[in-house]
């Protein structure tokens, strides 16, 4: 019984990992007064190689707006959270088109950042 449960769990863990973005290499920027972020509907990341990913899959910034519009659907405003994970060494030429795409799709943008010491709000 334990063996079956173990195998099922491994299966679901691998299935879930295919959809997440934990494999993406990036380092968050630090900022004072960051807040706890609510659960996202989508996650966009820019990695150390300055490639763009949507929910762990590589995507070009030109295709991002339409893909996000489909993903966010008719979700009401305030619940359309899109996490943006930008590698700290990225430049405006990398992240501005991505921010514009999230804005075009009507996403509620949340920059994922690391708090500077003793600066996290509850």
């Amino acid at each position: 019984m334990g063996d079956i449960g173990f195998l099922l769990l491994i299966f679901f863990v691998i299935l879930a990992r295919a959809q997440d973005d934990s494999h993406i290499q990036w380092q968050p920027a630090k900022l004072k007064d960051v807040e706890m972020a609510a659960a996202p509907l989508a996650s966009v990341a820019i990695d150390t190689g300055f490639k763009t990913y949507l929910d762990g899959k590589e995507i070009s910034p030109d295709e991002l707006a339409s893909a996000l519009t489909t993903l966010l659907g008719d979700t009401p405003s305030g619940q359309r959270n899109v996490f943006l994970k930008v590698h700290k060494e990225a430049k405006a030429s990398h992240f501005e088109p991505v921010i514009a795409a999230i804005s075009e799709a009507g996403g509620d943008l949340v920059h994922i950042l690391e708090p500077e010491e003793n600066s996290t709000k509850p």
Partner: protein
Amino acid sequence: MKLKRGKMLIDPPASASSDIAFTLIIFFLVCAAVQPETGLSQILPKTEEQAEKRDQSKNIEVTITPTSIVLNGSPLQLPAFSQRISAALKQKTRETDRIVVVKSSPDTPYPLWIAVSQAIEQAGGILTLELETERVINVE
């Protein structure tokens, strides 16, 4: 002197190893799931390509370069910028006047950009990006 021999350690039964592994995985999954993420939420007006139509004369303009932040033509560093933008936005009562147009040079680093945008939002400004659009013109 003879030392008294302690009891030998007993290995758990091999049939229980999968159950132990199962419990350990559940433990690590729960630990990973409860790690909260921290960040900065940002409200951006929906992107429009008709940016030229808006009345730019009333909007505050901020230009970010890797070395400075230019507020309405005056180059500043971040602490001075935070004070000046707060003072400038205090005079604005209408929401449309609180729009701050941000232009960034292509090599602006993300940490500087996010610090400037946080200063604008903390001062009560509505951040709007002005992006450079590329146009290909063929000259024959």
